[in-house]
Structures are given as C-alpha cells and as structure tokens.
C-alpha cells in the first residue's frame, strides 16, 4: 500500500516534470521567434507541434497529482 510519504514524493516528482516541460516550452518559444525572424516555416511548424505535444503532456501529468 502506498504511504503518505510516497504519495508526496510522487506528486513532487510530477510537479518537477511539469516545471521541466514548461522550461522547455520557453526554449521552444525562443526557437519559434528565431524561425519567424528567419522566415523558416518548417522550423516554425515543427516547434509549434512539439510545443502542443508538451503542453498536452503536462496536462496529462496533472492527472497524476493528488487532489
């Protein structure tokens, strides 16, 4: 059976994962701006795609967080 301490560790881990994903999103935003400045459409769309996947991933991680 899962103890309270384990549950706290698990939810801390989820928050850390979400923080890492959001930090990566910030990086992706800079890449998108760079793609915009260089008129690089494929890079801009690829960045947007990865960004959407990461946002969805962080939303899924929320489900694993204790209420």
């Amino acid at each position, binding site marked *: 059976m899962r103890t309270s301490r384990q549950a706290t560790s698990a*939810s*801390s881990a*989820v*928050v850390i994962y*979400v*923080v890492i*994903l*959001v930090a990566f*999103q*910030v990086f*992706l*935003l800079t890449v*998108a*701006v*760079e*793609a*915009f*400045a*260089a*008129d*690089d*459409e494929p890079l*801009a*769309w690829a*960045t*947007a795609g990865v*960004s*959407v996947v*990461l*946002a969805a991933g*962080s*939303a899924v*991680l*929320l489900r694993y*967080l*204790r*209420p």
Partner: protein
Amino acid sequence: MDDEQAIEPTWKRDFPYEAASEDEVTRREFARYLVAGAGVMAVGNLGIAAWTQLRTINTGEPRELIPLADVEIGDTYLFRYPTDADPAILLRLADREVVAFSQKCTHLGCVVYFEAEEDRWHCPCHEGNFEPRTGEVISGPPPRALGRIDVEIRDDTIWALGYQP
C-alpha cells in the same frame, strides 16, 4: 504558549496583517498554473508558425520600381517588396542586368547590404555573406540563400515581378 502561537513565525507576530491572497497555493494549483502557462505558450507557438506561413505566402504583385537611368552600374537601390514591411535591395550589375533580393538575412533577419570591394552581399550581424548574382550563401551562419525578387527591365524602367522566398 499554545500550539498555534508556537508554529507562527516571528515576522507574522510582528506584522500581523493578512490579505485574502495570502492563502497558500497548493501543489496542484501551482502545477495547474504551470500547465496553463504551457498551454498559452503552445498557442503562441502556433500563432507564430501561422504568421510565418502567411507572411511567406505573399509573393507580391508586379510593380514599377525606378527608372533604369537612376541606378548607376554597381549601385544599389533600396525599396520595399512585396509589402511595405519587407525591405529589399536591387543591384545593377551591368548595362541591362539587374538583380534584387530581400534585404533580410536568412539567419536572423538582419539587414544585408552590398559590399562592392568584396563583391558580395554582407550581413554585419553574424558575418554572413552571399553571392551577388544568385544570393546563395558563400560563408557564415545563414542556412539558405537570400529571398529572390524577380526583376525585369521594361522600357528603361525596372519592374519587380514577384518574390520567391
């Protein structure tokens, strides 16, 4: 001293002011804010991609630029094409030969200019260099050639016909 006083920090006893916003943010709420931020950034990224796409779709309409006689051989002429937000540069190579390119470097969008003594388009930001006739990259970080503007001489007047990113 009761239990509540025992766990209360000293600063809270010294400054006993409270506001509704002082409520603790739970871990779940914090994560929810982060996910909301991630969503906003994803939407921003999609917007940037769409904007980049829409900008490159516009290839411009044919229009008159300048009389040929107003540009000396080896000289450049600055104009804007296909829209007023797009700086472009024209170079007269020979009597009846002109080329024109987008003035935006394909690396990070700095403005390129013609270096006559080196016979090349030069971007001063990161030392990118382009071939004067084709706009192909000679050296530096730019990933691809300059955007080309088709130009033509009609009745001693230079016309821009369209933009090829």
